[in-house]
């Protein structure tokens, strides 16, 4: 059996007096597609942000691809990671944000080529060729020279996905990537993600309120509540036969709110 690509061990995350994650542990296997669902404020975003090194943890350990994320070996002991170590670890991880976070002063193509050229030293011509491939994959090749302000939300998000893919991370994190979109634009983004899931062996972690999509996309569903994993399992088991009371209540609520399962 292969070893997990992500291993989260007993992490603690607090904001002032508020403990958001209290001794959370979980593992993700290479290539696994994982959906994190749960009520608002349950800590789903926080987990992704911690994996992307956008938040510090207050305790515990995280191992990515066999290496400590927030710690490093030094003088025989484990010490807090420095910026260099974090930069090395970030090469393995990419993230797509709810609000796209494109660079507004750069055209679509340059949004994508910037990081590969600067962080991997890839020549402009090669980076642009790769950017065009990725834009083609997300159906945005004809907008390569447009500025982000000229795009719809769905188009922006597809560009943001291409931008994250350009660094070829082993792990991709998606935080509610469709929830800022008008309903009619959701599907074009979900289609891109379906294609990604089918065509790549990247490990993908997805936070979503689209239960139908989570069901089709994920190999495994984690249901979170109050910073803990309440229930996990295969999509069919979670959605058809949730065992935990809290999972049942949550799913009843989202279905009542009009999300299809």
């Amino acid at each position: 059996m292969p070893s997990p690509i992500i291993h989260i061990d007993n992490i603690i995350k607090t904001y002032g007096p508020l403990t958001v994650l209290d001794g959370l542990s979980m593992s993700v296997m290479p290539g696994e597609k994982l959906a994190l669902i749960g009520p608002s404020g349950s800590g789903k975003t926080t987990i992704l942000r911690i994996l992307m090194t956008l938040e510090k943890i207050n305790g515990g350990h995280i191992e990515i691809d066999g290496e400590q994320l927030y710690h490093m070996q030094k003088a025989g002991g484990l010490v807090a990671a420095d910026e260099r170590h974090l930069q090395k670890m970030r090469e393995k991880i990419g993230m797509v944000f709810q609000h796209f976070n494109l660079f507004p002063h750069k055209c679509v193509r340059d949004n994508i080529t910037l990081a590969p050229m600067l962080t991997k030293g890839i020549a402009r011509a090669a980076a642009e060729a790769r950017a065009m491939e990725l834009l083609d994959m997300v159906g945005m090749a004809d907008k390569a020279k447009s500025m982000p302000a000229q795009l719809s939300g769905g188009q922006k998000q597809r560009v943001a996905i291409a931008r994250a893919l350009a660094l070829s991370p082993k792990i991709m994190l998606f935080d509610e990537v469709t929830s800022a979109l008008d309903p009619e634009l959701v599907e074009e983004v979900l289609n891109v993600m379906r294609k990604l899931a089918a065509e790549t062996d990247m490990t993908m972690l997805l936070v979503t309120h689209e239960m139908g999509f989570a069901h089709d996309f994920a190999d495994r569903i984690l249901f979170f509540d109050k910073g803990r994993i309440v229930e996990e399992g295969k999509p069919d088991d979670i959605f058809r036969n949730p065992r935990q009371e809290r999972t049942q209540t949550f799913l009843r609520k989202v279905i009542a709110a009009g999300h299809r399962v």
Partner: protein
Amino acid sequence: MIDWSGYLGLILQGALVTVELTVMGSALALVMAFAAGLGRLSRFAVIRMLATVYIEFFRGTSIFVQLFWAYFVLPFAGITLTPLQAGVLALGLNVGAYGAEVVRGAVRAIGREQHEACVALNLGRYHRMRHVILPQALPLMLPTFGNNAIELLKGTAVVSLISLTDMTFQAQVVRAQTGSTLIPFATILVLYFAMATAISAGVRWLERRAARGLDGVRV
């Protein structure tokens, strides 16, 4: 009858000195503004403190006193400056301190999500600043930089106090020699105004260019 052409020539020579002071002072101010403005955002406490001391000191004392220090006191420390050098130094450091706050404010106005996108794309601190934050912050700085440059232009007149022959100095010479106040001072009024207008137009042009880069139709 007074021969005005000779006197006007004198004032134009002074105008050249004023332009020189403005250009060189603005260049120094720009450098100081970025050095101190980014210094105040440094993660090193020592650099933040140095930047803060510089900014507070030069904003808290008058340009007049600073100029006299640069010209009359520094020689005691073994540093002798020409009047032009002293003028550029005092003006540049003084206006740079105001500019530093502009730089800091503009950089801080760029949202957290831009920084986070940079982290997610693994851009280091330098690349983040150079390629993502500053290009977006620069258009926000330009209008105030334009104001600062005009303030600097108007401030150049103080250098006449250390006998630098700028436009104001020459106007006083002409006044002393001809007895006419109206003509030399009307002339420099027009010239100062023309220079300030040129600065405004230049900055507006830069703003338009910067805006086009941001949301326009670049092909």
